[in-house]
């Protein structure tokens, strides 16, 4: 496997865009990434796209084919990857593999989404053979209830306070104020967050990400190509994909085994651990993290699950401001899912864009000083996890 560089990145802002099609969002992101890479469309040799359940793709998840038709059908291979909310991460991984293996020199990775109105159902299959369906009808339990249960257990174990939870949301919005692509760009006070409605105890409305429309694109290339464009490229140090383990303690249907030890989100932990191994890097080397903050809880759980901090230490890192862009463990300087809202299949690509801007020092007032190594992670239905490490 050879070295792969991030040559260009581009996004359409996140938000709700009733008057734009998913193709409009996609084109904006792809044109921006091509321009950033200084690459013309016909130079792209393959496309790896996140496959959407909700929008475009001719209803068959063919979102990569849509963008190729829009930009001009050159006959190139197109891969459409489904992995729930991890689809963007999976698409990045295949794009990376296509370049790293030596098959192609310039590959476009892309994810775009126009989310439907209202709450998303976890499963689209209305059959009793589908475990997600069975959980919804027999327990009346939507996705955010998982986060509530995990978070209340953490409160019981570590004494996490409601104020600590709210601080994470405040920090997210403080960052997003400086991000022109974010959907919500106003500051939130602790009071704003603590006064928002309880959704799934102990999680409040402003502690859970909404849904958004959005699109992001990345041009990957070989080292040789990268050096034609710049002397100091952003490198892909690792890109990994994993699924959850059988002994994981979070039921994916109605039940799981009682795990031998605290074993949660094993798909994310496996992907992140393998990424560190592949990159020959350790958690201490990380300058910043873009993690999947569907809820503030994940900013507490993930760092300890991945060895970025000690068990139970995350709360004090939040309180001391260590997770802000100028702290010792900057988390989601972009503003994260909390400030962008989730455009499911675009999120893994969105994270790579932010890492690239940070590593290039182009993140403006949300810049992490001296950023050298960035870690991104997604998690999706079906037990899909992905991790990406970029370095400079």
């Amino acid at each position, binding site marked *: 496997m050879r070295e792969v560089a991030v040559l260009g990145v581009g996004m359409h802002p996140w938000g709700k865009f009733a008057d734009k099609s998913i193709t409009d969002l996609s084109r904006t992101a792809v044109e921006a990434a091509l321009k950033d890479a200084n690459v013309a469309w016909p130079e792209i040799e393959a496309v790896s796209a996140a496959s959407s359940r909700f929008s475009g793709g001719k209803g068959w998840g063919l979102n990569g084919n849509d963008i190729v038709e829009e930009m001009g059908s050159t006959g190139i291979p197109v891969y459409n990857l489904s992995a729930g909310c991890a689809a963007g991460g999976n698409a990045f991984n295949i794009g990376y593999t296509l370049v790293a293996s030596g098959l192609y020199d310039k590959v476009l990775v892309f994810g775009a989404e126009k989310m439907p109105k*209202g*709450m*998303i*159902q976890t499963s689209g299959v*209305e059959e*009793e053979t589908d475990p997600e*369906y*069975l*959980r*919804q*009808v*027999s*327990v*009346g*339990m*939507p996705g955010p*209830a998982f*986060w*509530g*249960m*995990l*978070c*209340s*257990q953490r409160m*019981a174990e570590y004494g996490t306070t409601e104020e600590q939870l709210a601080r994470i949301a405040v920090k997210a919005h403080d960052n997003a104020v400086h991000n022109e692509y974010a959907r919500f760009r106003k500051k939130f006070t602790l009071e704003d967050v603590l006064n928002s*409605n*309880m*959704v*799934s*105890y*102990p*999680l409040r409305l402003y502690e859970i990400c909404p849904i958004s429309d959005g699109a992001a694109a990345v041009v990957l290339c070989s080292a040789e190509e990268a050096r034609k464009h710049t002397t100091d490229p952003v490198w892909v140090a690792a890109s990994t994909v994993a699924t959850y383990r*059988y002994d994981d*303690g979070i*039921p994916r*249907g*109605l*039940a*799981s*085994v*009682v*795990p031998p030890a605290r074993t949660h989100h094993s798909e994310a932990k496996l992907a992140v651990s393998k990424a560190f191994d592949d990159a020959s890097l350790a958690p201490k080397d990380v300058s910043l993290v873009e993690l999947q903050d569907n809820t503030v809880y994940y900013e507490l759980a993930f760092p300890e699950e991945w060895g970025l901090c000690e068990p139970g230490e995350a709360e004090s890192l939040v309180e001391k401001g260590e997770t802000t862009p100028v702290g010792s463990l900057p988390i989601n300087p972009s503003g994260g899912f909390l400030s962008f809202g989730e455009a499911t299949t675009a999120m893994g690509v969105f994270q790579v864009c932010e890492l690239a801007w940070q590593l290039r020092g182009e993140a403006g007032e949300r810049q992490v000083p001296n950023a050298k190594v960035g870690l991104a992670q997604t998690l999706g239905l079906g037990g899909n996890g992905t991790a990406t490490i970029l370095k400079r």
Partner: protein
Amino acid sequence: MTTPTTTPVAEGLFAETAAGPRLLGSKCTTCETPYFPKAAICHNPNCNDSKLEDAEFGPHGKLWSYTVQYYPPPPPAKYDEPYKPYAIGLIDLPEGLRVLAQVSTVDPESTVGGADVELVIERLYTSPEGNEVTTFKFRQS
């Protein structure tokens, strides 16, 4: 006029047995892994001889954690109007099974992590035809 009946929310998930309410699942006799609902084969990747037999689980468990569902869940979930928040918990059973279920307490906010709980079969909602649809829940004593 038809007589109101009681129907389970899904077939084969739970039953009122002579010994009381039980969850209906299966267990691999090779590796002892419990399954709820029933599995067709053993999903333990370390087990190389899947041998499943029917098994009943419950009634005793411990509440590993819980949440309170403050907003009405989207379809296909159903509930009685007006919607009233309920607790949902992860319950660890001595058989080695961690189960998701509603926690039945008078006041959902009085739910306590770590509490002993017991399996019950209770109304989930009443259908438009007046039939009571039941599900498995765990009651915090």
